[in-house]
């Protein structure tokens, strides 16, 4: 069955949404219009650090900026949206631990940005107790 007839005002797409209990299509479209929530990410962690995968299709890799400041990771860039509007996006993540900004690795492949950041090693200081 050819479900999709044309890209504009596809009548079958509405039908699909009615059939599905959960309107995934609506959510999918909502993502694209919320600049503050772009890009979509998957975040993984372990005791050594953080791994982030972000969808950055359509973003110029030269204009993509990944920055770490204490415990905040920020992804910034410029994207030409599917509906033609060009917009700057910025998304920050507050993490419950500090990150080591010197050892970030970031790579883009097939429109996916993969970031790997180690945690800041805990500083151990020995506190001497003065004898009174």
């Amino acid at each position, binding site marked *: 069955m050819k479900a999709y007839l044309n*890209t504009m005002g596809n009548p079958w797409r509405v039908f699909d949404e009615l059939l599905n209990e959960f309107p995934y299509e609506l959510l999918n479209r909502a993502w694209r219009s919320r600049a503050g929530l772009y890009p979509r990410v998957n975040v993984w962690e372990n005791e050594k650090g953080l791994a982030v995968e972000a969808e950055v299709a359509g973003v110029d890799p030269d204009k993509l900026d990944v920055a770490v400041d204490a415990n905040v990771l920020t992804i910034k860039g410029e994207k030409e949206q599917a509906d033609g509007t060009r917009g700057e996006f910025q998304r920050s993540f507050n993490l419950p631990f500090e990150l080591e900004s010197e050892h970030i690795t970031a790579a883009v492949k097939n429109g996916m940005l993969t970031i790997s950041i180690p945690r800041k090693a805990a500083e151990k200081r020995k506190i001497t107790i003065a004898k009174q």
Partner: protein
Amino acid sequence: MSLIKTPEHEVQKVNRLEVTPASRVEESGEAFTLTVELPGVGENDIELTLENRTLSITAENTVQNFNDHTLVLTEIPEVRYRTAFDLPERVDTTGIQAASRNGLLILTLPKREEVKPRRIAIAAG
């Protein structure tokens, strides 16, 4: 004896969500440019077919699995991108070209010669 033969995680793997990818069409005098966003899809993983005048695109994204890490936040699901376009008569379907770059599929759909804008010379007289 359990009636459930297929464990849940295997069912989940097979049944990817079908999603319509974001796309846009731009028009110039020579051709239409159709851009489809397929993040997480490599050019060899795109199924692009033309049947009569219907152009179909199917692709599955690849979402990374970081071994020995715990998943904290999932916003990117594993999906099957699927969309189709009925190309208007103005398009010369034999000249369609496709290129993939950084998660974007860019299709150039040339216009038929007759519909391209032409300058008409005005004879003096």
